[in-house]
């Protein structure tokens, strides 16, 4: 040291000589030719423990004999400086990686008497590298390092698993089974301009399955100087592709379904603007989808209730009967079923299915007509039987009068006269009912107040009922607007119901039996309710009341009343229902939606 630094101050020389030995952040040991540690600095001792007196192999590696290829041994031979990468164990037994510099120390005879080993710990670096390796190997995408010849020099586990052992092969062979490079090779582009590229590729896995992946390329330097390699990282998107293919298929299927369904499908967005309008909708409304989608408001095509439902964040709406207007302003009866569409919680619009009921209406009409004809046939048979009985009564009446005249008996004459009267009445009632049922005419409507008809019926029956000890009550609707109705026919219906109710009261044991005729309006529908506290009806009877010639009144009834009533109500676009409790009474309810009432015939 005196020779090397002749001009250094003594203090510095001393510091270098003693303290540098301790201060350098390296482990330093001095080993003699017996590989025995004669001096170790405290850094060394911190890592490997107390070392002086031990053999180096003992100190570093806890071995009992000299290491194979011992670097120090070679330096003892040739005096060369060596650098080596070693692995050993620290004083706690944990693996330690260190890089060792081995330098000779010559004695006076020129022989290498000692070597100095200066090592620094690279354990941390090594583990980083290991982590990097694990990452490289285990990352769930294909990673390959390729050289300028497009040969794979490194491939990770997933790549090897999927495409097979690959080292040295060309990437296009490995990924795609090709014999030449791909026309759109991103790696070549990266080699050319150094920029990263990304593209989607289709490959063939070693099991022969089509594999889709998105590849990203980036330049890497392996030697630390030139950028001689490209790393390709590829994410497998096969599953994604399958999913999107499936989605596409499903979307095509829905499109096909919407396009070809016989129901009109109209969808609107949250603002009520039309965004789906299928072929059936074009036919129904007589406008083309082009004129409508994105342009028109949905209120032209779907019921207002549905748009309100979308606005108010409801769920679904079903209307058994509603009306829409086509481009020619014709009213079309429809059935509507709609659902509000949501994306998460947000309402994004609604889709409605609109079924054209015209054909069905026509069929219903036809069916009704057929039922009516069948009923007419049945009536003729029943009528004949009924008339035979009535005729017998008439003949009987005549005979009894004749017999009374012969015998000069006034009571007998009166009896015969009563028989005549009774049977003439019966035949009148029967024929009237039959006629009004067989007439299939359009109601002759006039602007009428719903209360007025009910009031007339009430006045007609009030007194006769009272004589029989039955109270009839009338509850007129408040502020009911007039409507187009066939007053005479509605009168017939209400009269039928009220007279039935009175009959029901007469056949009950209930005292204080009463009949209530109630008129009201709910949801733009005129409602008549006739309730009685009479005998009520069994289920079987209830199911038959509106069908042909059903009567529980023996020869007192024609069986036509409720059938006629139902027909009239249907002709007014309404319906009639019955709720009954045997022994407690019945409620007949007529519902006449205002918008379905017949319009007055014009130009006739």
């Amino acid at each position, binding site marked *: 040291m005196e020779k090397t630094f002749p001009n250094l101050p003594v203090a510095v020389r001393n510091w270098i000589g003693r303290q540098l030995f301790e201060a350098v952040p390296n482990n330093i040991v001095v080993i003699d030719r017996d590989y025995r540690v004669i001096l170790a600095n405290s850094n060394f001792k911190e890592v490997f423990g107390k070392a002086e007196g031990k053999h180096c192999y003992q100190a570093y590696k806890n071995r009992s004999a000299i290491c194979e290829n011992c670097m120090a041994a070679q330096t003892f031979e040739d005096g060369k400086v060596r650098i080596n990468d070693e692995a050993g164990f620290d004083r706690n037994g944990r693996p330690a990686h260190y890089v060792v510099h081995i330098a000779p120390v010559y004695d006076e005879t020129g022989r290498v008497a000692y070597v100095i080993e200066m090592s620094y710990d690279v354990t941390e670096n090594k583990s980083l590298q290991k982590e990097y390796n694990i990452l490289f190997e285990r990352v769930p995408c294909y990673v390959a390092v390729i050289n300028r010849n497009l040969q794979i020099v490194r491939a990770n586990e997933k790549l090897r698993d999927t495409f097979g052992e690959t080292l040295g092969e060309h990437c296009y062979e490995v990924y795609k089974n090709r014999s030449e490079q791909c026309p759109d090779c991103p790696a070549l582009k990266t080699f050319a301009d150094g920029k990263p590229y990304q593209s989607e590729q289709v490959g063939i896995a070693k099991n022969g399955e089509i594999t889709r992946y998105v590849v990203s390329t980036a330049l890497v330097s392996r030697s630390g100087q030139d950028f001689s390699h490209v790393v390709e990282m590829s994410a497998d998107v096969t599953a994604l592709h399958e999913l999107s293919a499936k989605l596409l298929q499903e979307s095509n299927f829905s499109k096909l379904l919407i396009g070809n369904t016989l129901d009109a499908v109209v969808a609107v967005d949250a603002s009520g603007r039309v965004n789906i309008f299928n072929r059936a909708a074009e036919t129904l409304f007589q406008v083309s989808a082009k004129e409508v989608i994105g342009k028109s408001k949905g209120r032209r095509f779907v019921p207002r209730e549905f748009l309100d439902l979308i606005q108010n964040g409801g769920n679904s709406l079903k209307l058994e009967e509603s009306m829409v207007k086509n481009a020619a302003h014709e009213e079309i009866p429809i059935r509507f079923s709609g659902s509000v569409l949501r994306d998460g919680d947000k309402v994004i619009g609604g889709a409605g299915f609109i079924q054209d009921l015209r054909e069905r209406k026509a069929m219903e009409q036809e069916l009704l007509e057929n039922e009516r004809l069948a009923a007419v046939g049945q009536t003729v048979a029943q009528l004949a*039987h009924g008339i035979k009985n009535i*005729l017998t009564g008439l003949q009987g009446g005549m005979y009894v009068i004749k017999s009374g005249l012969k015998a000069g008996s006034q009571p007998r004459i009166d009896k015969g006269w009563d028989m005549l009267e009774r049977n003439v009445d019966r035949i009148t009632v029967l024929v009237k009912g039959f006629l009004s049922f067989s007439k299939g005419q359009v109601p002759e409507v006039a602007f009428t107040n719903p209360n007025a008809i009910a009031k007339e019926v009430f006045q007609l029956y009030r007194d006769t009922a009272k004589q029989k000890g039955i109270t009839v009550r009338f509850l007129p609707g408040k502020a009911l607007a007039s409507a187009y109705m066939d007053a005479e026919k509605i009168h017939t219906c209400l009269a039928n119901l009220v007279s039935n109710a009175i009959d029901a009261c007469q056949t009950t044991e209930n005292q204080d039996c009463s009949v209530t005729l109630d008129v009201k309006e709910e949801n733009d529908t005129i409602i008549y309710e006739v309730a009685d506290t009479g005998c009520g009806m069994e289920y079987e009877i209830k199911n038959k009341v509106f069908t042909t010639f059903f009567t529980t009144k023996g020869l007192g009834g024609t069986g036509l009343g409720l059938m006629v009533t139902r027909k009239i109500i249907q002709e007014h676009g309404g319906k009639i229902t019955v709720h009954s409790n045997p022994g407690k009474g019945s409620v007949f309810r007529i519902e006449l939606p205002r918008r379905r009432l017949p319009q007055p015939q014009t130009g006739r």
Partner: protein
Amino acid sequence: MSKKNIVLVDDEADVITFLQTVLEDHGYATWPAINAAEGLKLIKEHKPDLVCLDVLMPEESGISIFQKIKTDPDFQQLPVIILSGLNLSQDLEQVQFRKLADGTILPAPEGILEKPANAEQFLALVDKILG
């Protein structure tokens, strides 16, 4: 000579009145019933010379009464006239209403008359059976 007794069963009062007047005017005694139960009771009580039955009645039909009469040893000789608005004569002749559950076929009723029947027709039939 005592009057011949005739039981009349029909659910229609007017028919009963008619038949009663016809028969009484011509010297018969009548026992009217408006249903089957009442009719059967009268038959047992009065052992009539003739029974006149309507077919369609609410509780029990005239056919049922007819079968009861013709299967009862005490009454099987009792003549029966069936009087109905239904077109029955053919059916009755074709045994449909005379065939019992055990397969026995009863003899035809002594008289069948379709409504509407006039007084003369009815009386002629009664006279023929009882004469």
